[in-house]
């Protein structure tokens, strides 16, 4: 699960990470008082930041033509003016796709005079099965680009989960970032807090880009998280009720939410051939073979190991809600599950949804003969495939006609 920047900073602050003075606003009524509070705190600038689950907001453009999802206002009135152009409008960035995302929350933050920008992230290193802290002096940039062009500018520190982050490890990172004096100590505290946020919240990634040295109104310098991104391990949310409440359904595709209600794992894609498969690996492989046969998959859909008639019907309805779908490929390897149960479910779903599109079914495994008989005698127009390759070719051909 992903959360918004303001929610991420809220979690980080709990673990002692310094963040700017900032207030989220969900409606225009909330914007002015929030901007006034920020101005009253001594900040001459108010930053207005669109809250969506996608990067590239600063360079993004609203569907209305308004440029920039992050704006720096010199006055409260200007901040309110920006907010009016952002709130409720659809922001398109390089990560949102052409459809963009509607901005439903703004984050108003005290403007900071940035002296230096860094990158800091905590993630799992799959090769060692241990947490890894990554830091770079090249903040505010695309870190993948830095990793490719200047790998020497990325500093890595592996954490032993048995003892957690040790102070010397945080000191090594602060030193690698070139922090000195009071900033060094502040950096150590911040790095420790970021790691602890990752561990204690069961995050899959915490990323600060940029982490910055900023000059405060009184001329003193400090380090703080100017932007923050946190994604969480879905499997661990059961022990974080407070974080689960941060879920924003507006950021999730409606069909994916609907699918999750039926314990179906569905991801919408851009192609025209829908697939319904049992097992994640087989589902991926089915998508691949559709592409190999010259078409493109409309979705990833794993119905799991014990699909019921209700699940199959729900799966068909979800698939058919995608207007791009021109044909359906069902690929079931019924290891333990009974192929005849699946076949009965398919026939019922076709009848209930009044399916008109070409449907190719490949069944294999337990009680497969009875399953094939059920399909053949159903009176429903179903094309059967003998193998995955055969089924994929048939559905691509049927759609191509």
């Amino acid at each position, binding site marked *: 699960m992903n959360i918004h920047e303001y929610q991420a900073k809220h979690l980080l602050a709990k673990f002692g990470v310094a963040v700017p003075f900032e207030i989220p606003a969900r409606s225009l009524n909330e914007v002015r008082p929030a901007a006034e509070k920020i101005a009253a705190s001594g900040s001459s600038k108010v930053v207005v930041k669109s809250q969506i689950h996608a990067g590239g907001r600063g360079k993004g453009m609203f569907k209305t033509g308004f440029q920039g999802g992050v704006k720096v206002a010199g006055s409260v009135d200007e901040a309110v003016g920006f907010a009016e152009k952002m709130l409720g409008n659809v922001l398109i960035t390089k990560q949102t796709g052409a459809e963009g995302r509607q901005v439903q929350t703004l984050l108003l933050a005290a403007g900071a005079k940035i002296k230096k920008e860094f990158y800091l992230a905590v993630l799992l290193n799959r*090769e060692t099965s241990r947490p890894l802290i990554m830091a770079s002096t090249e903040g505010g940039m695309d870190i993948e680009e830095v990793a490719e062009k200047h790998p020497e500018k990325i500093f890595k520190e592996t954490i032993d989960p048995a003892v957690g982050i040790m102070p010397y490890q945080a000191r090594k990172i602060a030193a690698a970032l070139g922090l000195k004096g009071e900033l060094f100590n502040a950096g150590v505290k911040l790095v420790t807090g970021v790691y602890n946020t990752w561990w204690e919240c069961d995050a899959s990634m915490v990323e600060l880009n940029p982490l910055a040295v900023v000059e405060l109104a009184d001329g003193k310098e400090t380090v703080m998280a100017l932007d923050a991104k946190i994604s969480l391990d879905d*499997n661990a949310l059961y022990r974080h009720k407070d974080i689960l409440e941060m879920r924003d359904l507006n950021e999730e595709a409606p069909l994916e939410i609907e699918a999750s209600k039926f314990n179906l794992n569905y991801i919408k894609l851009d192609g025209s051939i829908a697939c319904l498969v049992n097992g994640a690996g087989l589902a991926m492989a089915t998508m691949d073979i559709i592409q190999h046969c010259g078409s493109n998959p409309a979705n*990833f859909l794993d119905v799991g190991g014990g699909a019921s008639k209700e699940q199959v019907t729900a799966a068909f309805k979800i698939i058919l809600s995608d207007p791009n779908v021109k044909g359906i490929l069902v690929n079931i390897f019924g290891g333990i599950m009974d192929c005849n149960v699946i076949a009965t479910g398919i026939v019922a779903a076709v009848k209930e949804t009044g399916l008109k599109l070409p449907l190719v079914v490949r069944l294999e495994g337990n009680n497969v003969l009875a399953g094939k008989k059920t399909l053949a005698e159903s009176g429903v127009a179903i094309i059967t495939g003998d193998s995955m390759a*055969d089924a994929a070719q048939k559905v691509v051909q049927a759609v191509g006609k």
Partner: protein
Amino acid sequence: MSILVKPNTKVLIQGITGSFGARHAQLSIDYGTSVVAGVTPGKGGQFFEHGGVKVPIFDTVADAVKQTGATASAVFVPPPFAADAILEGADAGLDLVVAITEGIPVRDMVRVKRALQGNTKTRLIGPNCPGIVTPGEGKDSHGGCRIGIAPGYIHKKGNIGVVSRSGTLTYEAVWQLTSRGVGQSTCVGIGGDPVNGTSHLDVIKLFNEDPETTGIIMIGEIGGSAEEAAAEWIKKNCKKPVAGFIAGATAPPGRRMGHAGAIVSGGKGTAAAKIAAFKDAGIGVAVTPSEMADVLLKMM
């Protein structure tokens, strides 16, 4: 021979009284696997009965091992308790702990993996895996050792080793082999999570040493770099033909494809990179999943 388990391996089941554990305990008993004990805390002294077999239930794994001589376990306990169950199995000195449970938090597995570091006695397979099958000699491979959730009847005793992250894709490969009259030595599902106990490479090494295994099918998927590591080792050390398939060539970056580990992030773990590593290592690449068995058989 086979790897990891033999047809007569004594198996215990952690979580035998849960619906999922019970169902698969029954199927393993039906397959002829020697299921000698169950563990459910608080139900010690009771019995799990199926098909004329009476399996004693114990409160602790240590007790079960002491009383029955079990050497391998299947973990079916729910995710919040799975890390504890795995480490309990290791503490009891089992040779093999196979964690079937899906949905264990990554942090729990990071701790488990750390706790098992240096433990040369117990091997963990999984979590989130279909388990292991060493086929037997009977009809539909009856009499083999089945730990986990794979369908037993699709197997056939023989000489091909199969290792995969995915369940149904493993069954697909096994079925392709069996349908062509070719049997398997052992089939291992290592699981689709980002942190797992046993890697592709670990299993490949075992197959390489096993005199009965004459060819290997390795099935991978997007995410991580375990397939690349295995390919590199195969290039230098493997004496046997290996055919491979990588699922997820069409998966968009940043989206998790069902398995927690199946995600392309930061440009790493792409199918293209893995397939290139396979080709470089002389591994026969199945372009589509329909060809996994045929590609291997052509190499042999």
